[in-house]
C-alpha cells in the first residue's frame, strides 16, 4: 500500500502565551501526530479526555496514522465512528477516502462485556492479523457507565481491561484511549478515568472554549497546549 508522504511542518501561528494555533486540517493532523499520537515515543498508553468532541479528535488521530500508511485498529465503545469525517480528512490531504477507510479496522462494542472481551481477547489477535501497532479506543468507559451493570461487576471488568491495556503498552503497542469525563450519576465508576490517567504515559485534556478547542498536556517535560480554532473545528 502506498505510503503518504508526511512532512514535519511548523505551525504558522501562536497565541500570546506561545500556544500553537492549528489552522488547517493538515496542521491539526500534524499537531496530533507530534502530540497525542507521538512518533518520537511510540510506545504506551496515551489518554485523551474531555467533552464528547474528543471522539472526533480521536478519529483525526486514527486518520493521521492511516494516512501515514499504518493499519489502525479502532475500538468503538460509544458508537461514535464517523466514516464521513474520515473521508473529509482524507480529501483534505488529497488522498482517496477509500484508501484511508481501508486502513482503519473497526469493531463496535455495545456492552461493557463486549468491550472487555474485545480488549482482552480479540485485540491481541487482531493486532497480529492486521500487523497493526496503533490502537484507538474510543469510549472504552462509556459502556461501563451503564447503570444496568452493578458497580462491582463494572469495576471487575474495568480492572481486566486496564490490565490488558497495560500489558499491550508494555509490548510496544501505541494505544490512544479517548474518553469523555464520567457522567454525574456514575458514582464510584468516576474513578475509572483517574485510574486510566494514572496508568497512561501521557494524559491530554480537551476543553471547549468560544474561540476553539484547547488541548492541554499535564506532566511530561513541560506542560504543553494547543489550540484548534472554532472555524476549523466546525469545518471538519
Amino acid at each position, binding site marked *: 500500500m502506498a505510503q503518504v508522504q508526511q512532512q514535519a511542518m511548523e505551525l504558522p501561528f501562536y497565541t500570546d502565551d506561545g500556544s500553537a494555533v492549528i489552522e488547517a486540517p493538515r496542521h491539526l493532523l500534524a499537531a496530533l501526530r507530534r502530540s497525542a499520537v507521538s512518533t518520537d515515543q511510540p510506545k504506551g498508553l496515551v489518554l485523551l479526555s474531555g467533552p464528547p468532541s474528543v471522539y472526533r479528535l480521536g478519529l483525526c488521530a486514527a486518520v493521521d496514522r492511516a494516512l501515514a500508511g499504518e493499519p489502525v*485498529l*479502532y475500538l468503538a465503545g460509544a458508537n461514535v*465512528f464517523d*466514516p464521513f469525517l*474520515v473521508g473529509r480528512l482524507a480529501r483534505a490531504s488529497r488522498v482517496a477516502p*477509500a484508501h*484511508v*477507510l*481501508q*486502513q*482503519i*479496522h*473497526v*469493531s*463496535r*462494542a*455495545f*456492552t461493557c*462485556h*463486549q*468491550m*472487555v*472481551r*474485545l480488549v482482552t481477547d*480479540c485485540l491481541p489477535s*487482531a493486532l497480529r*492479523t*492486521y500487523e497493526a501497532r496503533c490502537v484507538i479506543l474510543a469510549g472504552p468507559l462509556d459502556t461501563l457507565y451503564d447503570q*444496568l451493570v452493578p458497580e*462491582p*461487576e463494572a469495576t*471487575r471488568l474495568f480492572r481486566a481491561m486496564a490490565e490488558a491495556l497495560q500489558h499491550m503498552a508494555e509490548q510496544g503497542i501505541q494505544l490512544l484511549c479517548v474518553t469523555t469525563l464520567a457522567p454525574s450519576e456514575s458514582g464510584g465508576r468516576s474513578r475509572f478515568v483517574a485510574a486510566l490517567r494514572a496508568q497512561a504515559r501521557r494524559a491530554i485534556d480537551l476543553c471547549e472554549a468560544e474561540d476553539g478547542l484547547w488541548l492541554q498536556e499535564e506532566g511530561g517535560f513541560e506542560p504543553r497546549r494547543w489550540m484548534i480554532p472554532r472555524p476549523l473545528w466546525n469545518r471538519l
Partner: protein
Amino acid sequence: MVVWLLCEDGRRLRAVDPYVPTCYLAAPTPILHHASRLLRRASCRIDTREVERYELGGLCPIPVLEISVYAPSQFSSLTQLLIRSCPDAQFFHVDVSLPQRYFYDRQLFPLIHCEADLTAEGQIQSIQALESPWDTDYGLPPLTIMELSLDSSSPNPNHGGRGALIMRINGDERLLEGDDADVIQRLNQLLVREDPDILLTDWGDSYLLPRLMTLADRLRLPLVLNRDPHRPIGARKPHSYFSYGRILSHAGARTLSGRLHLDRHNSFALAEVGLAGLIEQARVTKVDLQQMARTTTGTGITSMQLETACRDGLLIPYRKQEPESFKSALELLQTDQGGLVFAPIAGYHEQVGELDFSSMYPSIMVRFNISPETVNCRCCRDEPAARVPEIGHHTCRRCQGLVPRTLAPLLEKRVRYKKLMAAAAQTAARAVLDQRQTALKWLLVVSFGYLGYKNARFGRIEAHEAVTAYSRDILLQAKEVAERQGYRMLHAIVDSLWLVKSGAVRADYDGLAQAITEQTGLSIGVEGLYRWIGFFPSRVNPLMPVPNQFVGLFDHGGMKIRGIEIRRSDAPFLVKRAQAEVLRCLSEAGTLAELRTQIPQALEIVRTYRRYLHEGRATIEELAIAKSLTKEPQAYRHQTLSMIAAQELLARGVHLQAGDTIHYIMTDADAACPSDRVRAVAGIDGAWSYDVSAYDNLLLKAALVLLMPLDVTPALLNASTDPARRTTQGSINGESASL
C-alpha cells in the same frame, strides 16, 4: 410457584406447583468446587449434576454444572451470590424471570385454558394445557374488571389538579367522596365484595395506588388491593430509558398478587392494542400480563426467543460477550446502512397506488434464515446462494436459525388473523381480531430492532446488517418490476412504494403485486388506490422533499395521513381539529382539479378558527401543548418553553424526570421574563390568557402544509384568512363563531 386458577364453578383458587428451576455454570474445576461449597451452605435443597449442553451456534456441547434449586423463592439470591463469588465463571439461565421459565417448562401461558389436579392442600400434581398459544379462535376466562380513575381534567394528577376517586364495575359507576377515611373504607368494602380479577386504573402506578396505600397506612385502615394475603404489593421505582433514539419515562409499577393491576397511562400495549391485544401478546410471549403491560414489546420477543432456546436445549447466556468482528471502515460504510428511501416527488398527484410488503423485515429473517448463529456460518461461506446482496456476509443454508424458528409461527398467525378479519361479519369481532393482529405486528416490528439491540440476548449486528441489505435489494427489485410494467415511482420508503400509471385500476395493481411477490419471494399487497395524494416538502426548505409526510384520499373514501400536525402528539388540539376540518373539506374532491376548487372553502375554515382564537374563546384543553422532556430537568441549559413549564412544576414540588410529558399553554411566548411565556396546565387556576399570535402561527403552519402545494402562499393564506375580515359564516363545534 404460586398459580392462580379460575375454576369452572367461578372459584378463584391459589395453588402451588412444586416447580424446580435450574441454571448452569461453566468454569474450570477449582471454580466449580468453590461454587459447590457455596451451594452446600444454602438453606434449601439443591441438586447438582454435570451435563453437556450446546451454546447457540456452538458446534460441540460444553460441559456445565446443572444446578436445581428446590425453593424458587431463593433462586435469584442464590444465583446472584454465585455470580458475585465466581466472577470468572460463565453463567446460563440465571436471569430469566421465573414465571416465564415456569410457562416455558410446563408449556403453559397466561390466561390459558388448562386442566389441573390438585391435592386437598392446593398443591398442583399435574397441570396440562387444553389449548395452544397459536390458536386464533379462543375464549377468555370471565374476568371481573374494576376500574379506578380520578374525576379530573388534569393531564397528569402527579403534576396537580386531582379530583375525587371514581369506581366503575359491571356498568355501575360511583364517585367515592368524603374525607380520606371514608374513601379508603368504601373502596375497601367494594374490593372485598366485588373481588375483581383486574384492577384497571388511570395513573394507578404513579399516583393512585401509591396515594391510596399511603392514606390507608397513615389512617391504619385495611385496604385489600392484593388478593393473595401472603404476598406484598410489588413496587418498582420510576425510571427513564432510551428507546429508538428517544428518552422515555417509565412511571414505575405497582403490581398485585392474585389480581392483575393494569394502568392505562403506563402501558404501551394497552394504549396501542387494547386489552385483547395485550392478552394476545401475553399468550404468545409467555410474559405475565402485569409485566407485559408495563414492559417494552422487545421483552416479549426476547421471551419468545428464550423459549425457543429452552425448548431446543440451548444455553441462555447471562451476559452477551461476543463483540462485532473487525471490519475495515470501508466495509463498515457499506454494510452499516438502513432501509432504502426514495424521496417523494413533492406535490399532489392523482390515481396513485400504494403497495406494501407484509412484515418485510421479519419475513426477510425467516425467508433468508437470518439469525445470530446463521450469519457468516462456517459451513456455507462458499455457496453463492448464501451471499447477502451488496455486503460480504452470508447466511446458513443448512440449519434454520433460532430467530426464524421463533418468528415463523408469529408471521403465520398474523396472516390467519387478517384472513379472519376479512371474513368477520360483526364489527365487534373484527375489532378484537384487529387488536390481536396489531399486537402480533408490534412483536414482529421490534424483532428486527432486537437483532442489533445491545442488550438483546440473541442479537448480532451482522444479522441486523444482513436484513437491511436484503431489504434494499428487494425494494430495488420491486421498483424494477413496476417500471418494466410502465409504472412511475413517486416515493418509496423501506417496504412501501407509491406508484402511478395512467389508466391503471385495482386489477392492474393486484397483478403488479403478484409479479413482485413472484420476483422477490416476499408477499406484497395493495394497501390502496388513492384518488389523490399529496407529498409535502420540508417546511424549512420547500425545495426539499420529506419522506413519510403525506395525505392521501383512498378510493373508498378513507384517508391516510402521516407526519403532519394531526398525527403529532405535541400539536394543540385546536390546531389538529382545524387541520382535520381542512382535510375533510379537501376530501370532498375526487380529482386534482376539484381539489383546487375546494381552496376557498378550506381558507374559510382557517379563517373561522383564527377568529375563534382571536376572540379569546379557546379553552385550556384546546390549547395545551404536550412535550416530552428530552433530558433531566436540571440538565437543560436553555429556557425552552417546555423547560419553563417544567420549572413551574418543580417549584410546586412536582417530581420530574427525563422522558416525562409536560403540558403547557403559551401565555406570552416572546415575553422578556421566561416565566411569563408559558404556564403548566396541571393545576392551572385563577386568571389565565393565551398568546393569540403564537397559536395563530401554529394554525397557519398547519394549514399551509396542506395548501402550499396548491399554490397558496403564506402571504395569500394570511391575507385571505384574516380574522378581522367579515365574509361568510363558519362554526366550531357546531357553535356559531359570532361573525
